[in-house]
């Protein structure tokens, strides 16, 4: 309870640090905020060429929206993913990057990783706004789903924040974390139905049946990945324009809460020792 109060009292600091990140990030670049779009657009281009054109991945058209554009279908999952990856990577480095500050000033340390969550949210909102415009232009009907979209974006941000908190501490003690993270995120991207539809996994799973003579199927293992569920909800809302399964919502919510809870506990039990450990 006290901790909550402390966090609440440093919300102004959190806002200021978030602004520092946002303002400092694209300063002195010609394209400014547009750079935030560059990375997802480049990825979109690459994946569209490789997976839609060369490898011929054909996702089902949006049901009931009827949309059938691979690049947009891809972006609906890719933007949440790049947001997640950004939060986790920058969050993991946040304490080390501010080592000088931690060793000289006493303040609530948790604002450091959280300010990066904040600045990533800002960029993400910008990207999502562009995506919404594109969706509307090609005939999607997303406006009624906006409130739900906000909810799932919030849940993903909470989930990512929890992971970032855990990794920021891990990175202080083991600098290997940041290098591991690069590899893990790459594998994680391919373990999530972002550039291919999850129906392909279902097909494979049915073909193979239970693994090693047990009832455990490929699909079951695959679904343990929380991002599978987040991506599903995002696509349902944005691309298909339909109400996602209630179970999917629940799974996302549980992952978000658990991640934040564990993240805060780990952070809290270590934050007093940071000045020495860095």
């Amino acid at each position, binding site marked *: 309870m006290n901790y909550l109060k402390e966090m609440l009292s440093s919300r102004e600091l959190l806002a200021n640090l978030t602004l*520092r990140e946002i303002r400092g990030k694209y300063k002195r670049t010609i394209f400014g905020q547009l750079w935030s779009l560059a990375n997802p657009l480049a990825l979109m281009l690459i994946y569209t060429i490789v997976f839609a054109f060369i490898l011929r991945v054909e996702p089902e058209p949006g049901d009931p929206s009827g949309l059938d554009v691979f690049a947009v279908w891809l972006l609906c999952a890719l933007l949440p993913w790049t947001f997640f990856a950004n939060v986790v990577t920058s969050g993991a480095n946040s304490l080390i990057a501010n080592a000088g500050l931690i060793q*000289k000033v006493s303040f609530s340390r948790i604002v450091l990783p959280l300010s990066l969550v904040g600045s990533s949210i800002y960029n993400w909102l910008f990207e999502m706004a562009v995506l919404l415009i594109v969706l509307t232009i090609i005939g999607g009907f997303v406006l009624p789903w906006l409130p739900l979209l906000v909810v799932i974006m919030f849940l993903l941000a909470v989930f990512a924040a929890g992971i970032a908190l855990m990794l920021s501490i891990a990175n202080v003690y083991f600098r290997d974390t940041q290098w591991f993270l690069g590899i893990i995120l790459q594998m994680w991207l391919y373990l999530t139905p972002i550039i291919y539809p999850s129906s392909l996994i279902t097909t494979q799973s049915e073909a193979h049946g239970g693994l090693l003579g047990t009832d455990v199927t490929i699909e079951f293992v695959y679904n343990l990945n929380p991002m599978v569920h987040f991506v599903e909800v995002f696509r349902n809302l944005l691309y298909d324009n339909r109400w996602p399964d209630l179970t999917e919502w629940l799974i996302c919510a549980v992952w978000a809460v658990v991640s934040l809870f564990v993240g805060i506990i780990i952070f809290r039990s270590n934050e007093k020792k940071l000045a020495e450990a860095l």
Partner: protein
Amino acid sequence: MTDIAVRVDNVSKSFRMYHERNQTLKATIMRGRRSVHEDFWALDDVSFDVPAGSTFGLIGSNGSGKSTLLKCLANIYQPNKGKISHFGSMAAMLEVGSGFHSELSGRDNIYLNGSILGMSKKEVDRKYDEIVDFSGVEAFIDQPVKNYSSGMYVRLGFAVAINVDPDILVVDEVLAVGDADFQAKCMQKFEDFKTAGKTVILVTHDMGTVSKMCDNVAWLSHGKLLEVGAAEPTIKAYLDTVAPGASE
């Protein structure tokens, strides 16, 4: 004055000196959880009281534990044993300009630095003019601070920090900033502080400053408190050990 501003109660602080530290995952896995270290006691059972409204100096040679004690006071390190209690709000100035973003303007940095040091936006709004005035960089306040000279940078940082206006101010060797003019301004500010009944705890190697500013002094050596008391005799005792006869 019998009121106590800060009570340092049997404070000890040790650091681990690692001979082989598990700083990589590989090392941890290969060696298990064990890492080879011994404890180094940077502070060993230090106790004293700082009277409210006084200026208190910490002296001692390099490596005597002054800075460690200051960081414990500033709530950056946690003592292993003992307790530090303070009565009244406390702010520390261990470095000036902490958290400045070089691409942001002086104005933005005042707000940023102010909030890092624990001021609310309203407080900074209220003290903004005073801060800018004190720093003497009005003409450049909307320029990014990377274009500031190092003197301007430090002055701005100092101006923000000094305006936090706590009951107890903990200061590390940051007084030696700026030109003579600015130093005189700083000294005046500390005088004002004292007149306002605030407490200052400072670390410095400049015995001139100590004897000029401090009422009481604590002398640390190798993590132990050797003497604490009125400034003059303690400083004299300290200087006698450093260079016998030098204080005469």
